[in-house]
């Protein structure tokens, strides 16, 4: 038999022989992943059906925590409402802005500079930037926004942006949108830059004339994987509003105006140490993120 040396060293064979080596490489990540990502969700599910204060052993209480959450805890309902309001505004707006600006930037000169300007806000620390926001939205006439609006003649008295519960929501939404061009934006930019040239060329031959037609028939359909990655990024981001709200509005915020699910979770877990109840809050957050994520996965599935 004329077995060539190449055929003798089939990759498959190598695969099987070196399995244990691959396992060794994978093991450190696997352990950390299981202990700090998978197990926590399972443990939180378990704990959510108990009373647990970290001193006594957890005792089973059935669905009491969930009943309390949804029927008796008005502040939780408020936090749910606030979180949804944030998510519904900042999620889609940030997502659309990321995509549209990535698409536009790709046609401009100075791509790198524009990309940098748009991406920088999302990597700043919410706490560090709050120092600036507190000056911009300062409730007296020293505040830049009040000063600007008074000069423009739009308002006569300064607005207490960071203290008035009715204004706080607007302030946090603006800041969230400012920070919202994150991972999604980079993936879109990379995806558009690396679109198949031939696909674009053949589109032109097939009669695509405007940039918008190109977007609709070529770019969007071939970028589903990137769109999905960006969408999942913005869902977890939009539902996890916490540090910027605390840094700007304090904890708890006036009238719980920008109290979010994560803020409620922090309150019960690490201020009151009611770990059972806090786990129930975590599981609600988990379920929400996961269900929305799964729906998006269904919509943007490739093939």
């Amino acid at each position, binding site marked *: 038999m004329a077995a060539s040396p190449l055929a003798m060293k089939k990759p498959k064979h190598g695969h099987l022989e070196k399995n244990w080596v691959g396992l060794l490489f994978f093991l450190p*990540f696997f352990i950390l992943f299981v202990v700090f990502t998978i197990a926590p969700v399972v443990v939180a599910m378990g704990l959510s059906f108990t009373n647990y204060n970290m001193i006594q052993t957890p005792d089973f209480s059935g669905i009491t925590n969930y009943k309390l959450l949804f029927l008796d805890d008005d502040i939780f309902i408020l936090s749910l409402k606030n979180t949804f309001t944030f998510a519904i505004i900042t999620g889609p707006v940030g997502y659309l802005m990321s995509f549209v600006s990535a698409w536009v930037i790709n046609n401009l000169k100075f791509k790198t500079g524009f990309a940098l300007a748009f991406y920088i806000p999302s990597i700043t620390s919410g706490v560090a930037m709050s120092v600036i926001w507190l000056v911009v939205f300062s409730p007296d006439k020293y505040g830049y926004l009040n000063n600007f609006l008074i000069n423009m003649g739009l308002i006569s008295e300064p607005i207490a942006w960071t203290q008035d519960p009715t204004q706080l929501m607007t302030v946090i939404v603006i800041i969230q949108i400012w920070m919202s061009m994150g991972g999604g934006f980079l993936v879109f930019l990379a995806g558009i830059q690396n679109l198949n040239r031939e696909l674009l060329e053949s589109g032109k031959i097939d009669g695509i004339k405007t940039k918008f037609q190109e977007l609709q028939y070529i770019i969007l359909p071939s970028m589903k994987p990137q769109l999905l990655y960006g969408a999942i990024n913005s869902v977890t981001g939009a539902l996890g509003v916490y540090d910027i709200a605390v840094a700007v509005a304090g904890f708890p915020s006036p009238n719980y105006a920008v109290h979010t699910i994560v803020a409620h979770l922090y309150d019960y877990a690490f201020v009151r140490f009611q770990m059972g109840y806090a786990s129930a809050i975590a599981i609600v957050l988990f379920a929400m993120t996961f269900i929305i994520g799964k729906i998006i996965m269904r919509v943007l599935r490739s093939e």
Partner: protein
Amino acid sequence: MNYESTKVIVKEPFKKRVVEKMKDIRRGFRHITPGWVMLYVFMLLLAAFCLLPIVYMISASLKPYDELFYFPPRFFVEKPTFDNFTNLFSALSNSTVPFTRYLFNSIVITVATVTGTCLVCSMGAYGLSKFKIPGGTAMFNIIIATLMFSPYVTRIPSFLVVSNLGLLDSFFGIVIVSVGASSNFFLMKQFIDQYPYELIEAARIDGAGEFRIFWKIVMPAQKPALSALIVFSFVASWNDYFTPLIFLSKQSMRTLPLALQSLAGGAGAATLATAGITAAASLLMTLPVIVIFVIMQRKVIETMTYAGIKG
């Protein structure tokens, strides 16, 4: 004579060249339509909206004390000074925990997290991508699903684990909970999938050891993905407010975001008098992430090309 002739020869084409160049320039400007101008103006305004807060932060951190009280407030600094920075380090140095201590804590935690993430995720991604691990495909699907987990959900049980291990108030405790982040693993795996298996095979035939192949042959080709991991884990760790808030209760162990939060005094307490010093501290927090991204921008975007999820 000779001189005269060359002069004539050179002069003519030069004139022509200038005329051609002018035509070129005019042609170059022909595509500048009103729509084009409006697009650039609009994008520049958006870019300004993104960057102004950062510019203001720089300006405010350089303002001398009296300029903070100007009315109407001025955006740009007039007589820049480094007083705010020296105050930040000197005035706070005789308090129980000096500012440099927070800086030190943040640097140690971030460097350890970035190093750990790069090592653990690249080794894991290599193992999963280039070897047949039983249940590997299922494992990767689970990892993709966990991209949807909010880190806040996993923090309570992680807190219980870390506290039972006696690792609360330790750098190690806070580092191990973030090193195995699935988002970083995912990026690395997607990138390493592009690496041809034949090269690994060839190295084996040449007799290279398994770890040597990984370290000396595969890893050098993963620089773009490693840059992305460095940027993302650096940003996440450096800016993290929630994890140190619950894992580190000792004042001397706390990190910059927590220190900054108490320096600013929280909402409502921000006064004009402390605006300069807090702006200086904020700038110290913000500059490193910007610098590190600027350095690695090109490589990060290269990595993100493979970050799509097929679903």
